[in-house]
């Protein structure tokens, strides 16, 4: 099974201005938004990147599509490297990978009608000789919008409608991979399902592969086959959605899963509350970067960064003392799993 996307040790940095103070302190102001990410996506798969603010998930996606330059590492799409592409090759990449942006209305050029927005991809790639009106109608139909929408301006659309236009634009040139950045952000609960159902349907009818970026675990559960949890620019756990939901190995994964209150007043608070906040990217903790907030922290965690461990079932995690599903009892003091030398 050949991978559609393969990412190896990707590093993305921002800033790095040389200022007088940085010369003195020896610290440059650059932040490492993505600190060495590796994963692979198969064709037809829906993969979710999960994380909170500062986790680097949006930066990673933008590096994949060439909007942000990478400092090091490799990204290959259908076997070809995508980093450092320029000109015609980069343009070709943009036909194969499309992105749906977080702000439904803000990601649509304010003076273009829906028709103009949907025709842009064709015009950009020199396909303006096609019957653009027909293409626009086709796309509107695919996302369930009435033809009358075509003459509206972005500020005249509701959040849900604008989101659909974004989806239609992304699939205009039949890309192989669609990256959806927080597809449910800004949408009411009663409308979120529409977008997710739409993406699922399109996945099936058009044979798309999808990379979904979200902090909403509820969404992940229903749309993604596999997922990766990011913290401070690194992957802390990667695996199938089902397996991770059943039992995360990394304590941060457990924290995320428990930070999801069920709308049930009687639900037992099965939770692991985290202390503190996400550390600043300018001041990365030593050792395991999660050690400051981890309830299971031990001496080793403070000084030694854990290596990536892989499970026989394909689960990857970076933790010295991973949780063992089934052993943990939540709602009381969780038990820490013992170190598993057999996995190293």
């Amino acid at each position: 099974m050949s991978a559609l996307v393969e990412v190896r040790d990707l590093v993305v940095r921002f800033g790095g201005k040389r200022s007088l103070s940085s010369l003195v302190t020896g610290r440059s102001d650059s932040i490492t938004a993505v600190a060495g990410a590796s994963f692979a996506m198969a064709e037809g798969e829906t993969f979710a990147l999960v994380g909170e603010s500062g986790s680097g998930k949006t930066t990673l996606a933008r590096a994949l599509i060439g909007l942000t330059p990478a400092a090091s590492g490799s990204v290959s799409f259908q076997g070809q490297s995508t980093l450092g592409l320029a000109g015609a090759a980069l343009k070709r990449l943009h036909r194969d990978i499309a992105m749906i942006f977080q702000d439904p209305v803000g990601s649509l050029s304010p003076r273009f009608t829906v028709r103009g927005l949907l025709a842009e991809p064709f015009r950009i790639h020199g396909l303006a000789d096609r019957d653009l009106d027909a293409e626009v109608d086709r796309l509107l139909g695919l996302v369930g919008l009435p033809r009358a929408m075509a003459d509206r301006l972005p500020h005249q659309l509701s959040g849900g409608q604008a989101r659909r236009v974004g989806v239609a634009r992304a699939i205009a040139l039949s890309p192989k991979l669609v990256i959806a950045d927080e597809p449910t952000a800004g949408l009411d609960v009663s409308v979120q399902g529409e977008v997710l159902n739409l993406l699922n349907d399109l996945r099936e009818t058009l044979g798309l592969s999808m990379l979904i970026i979200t902090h909403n675990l509820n969404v992940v559960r229903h749309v993604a086959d596999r997922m990766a949890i990011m913290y401070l620019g690194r992957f802390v756990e990667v695996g199938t959605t089902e397996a991770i939901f059943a039992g995360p190995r990394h304590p941060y994964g457990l924290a995320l899963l428990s930070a999801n209150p069920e709308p049930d007043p009687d639900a037992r608070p099965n939770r692991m509350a985290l202390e503190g906040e996400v550390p600043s990217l300018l001041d990365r903790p030593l050792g395991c970067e999660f050690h400051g907030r981890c309830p299971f922290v031990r001496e080793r965690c403070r000084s030694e960064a854990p290596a990536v461990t892989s499970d026989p079932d394909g689960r990857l995690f970076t933790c010295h003392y991973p949780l063992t599903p089934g052993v943990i009892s939540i709602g009381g003091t969780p038990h820490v799993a013992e170190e598993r030398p057999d996995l190293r």
Partner: protein
Amino acid sequence: MSEPLGAVGLVLVVAVVLVAIFAGVVARHSPIALAPIDRFQAPSEAHLMGTDNLGRDLFARVVYGSRIALSISLGATLLSLLLGVTTGLIAGYGPRWLDNALLLVFDALKSFPTVMLALALVTLVGPSLQAVILVVIISAAPSYARMARTQTLSVRHAEFVLAERSLGAGSGRIIATHILPNIIGPILIVASMDIPVVVAIEAGMSFLGLGVRPPTPSWGSILNDGFSYIRESPWPVIAGGLPIIITTLGFTFLGEALRDTFDPKRSGSR
């Protein structure tokens, strides 16, 4: 409401334009024919606005003066916009070093006092309409460039720009179709408000002998001549001032109406 005012503005501007085009027909006398015997006459059937200190028909001078006024104000402003907005867009969207270089140029030009600039240019080009236009461009273009640059800087990271980049749009396309239309509105308003200022620049230069040379009629020079002889007759001042007021109002109203049409949130709101 800006709608009826915009219409008024349009009417005034169109009137001025038509007068300029059909000056020969509208003015019944020559603007430069001297008749010292008839100096300082009040408005009458023969001379609709009276005569100036040399007996020239003021109405004819005003009518022909509209040509100068329009060619300077529209021509110079248009050229300033073209130059300024283009360089501003490039400075805002392009690489850092280009931005820094262009900023140096903008700020250097802006720091020249207009009068010194006028003097310097006139020694190069000689006193003329062209000199006035050049002075206007050099004074105005850097301001427009700065405005365009600032707006471009704030828009370039907007999500819709990122979205178009992700579709594969090149810089040229992004600047021309996605950035320019979204920033031009406020700049056009400022430009339309600048038009009367341009007329003042022309008047000032003509006063210093750096602009249009007599006997070519320009509203600014009519006004200036009128000030010298205001004790003899108020009519030259009125004749010079009135068209400036009308044109200023016209362009201002038009500019405000333009701004409303350029704001997509106001048009077609349903």
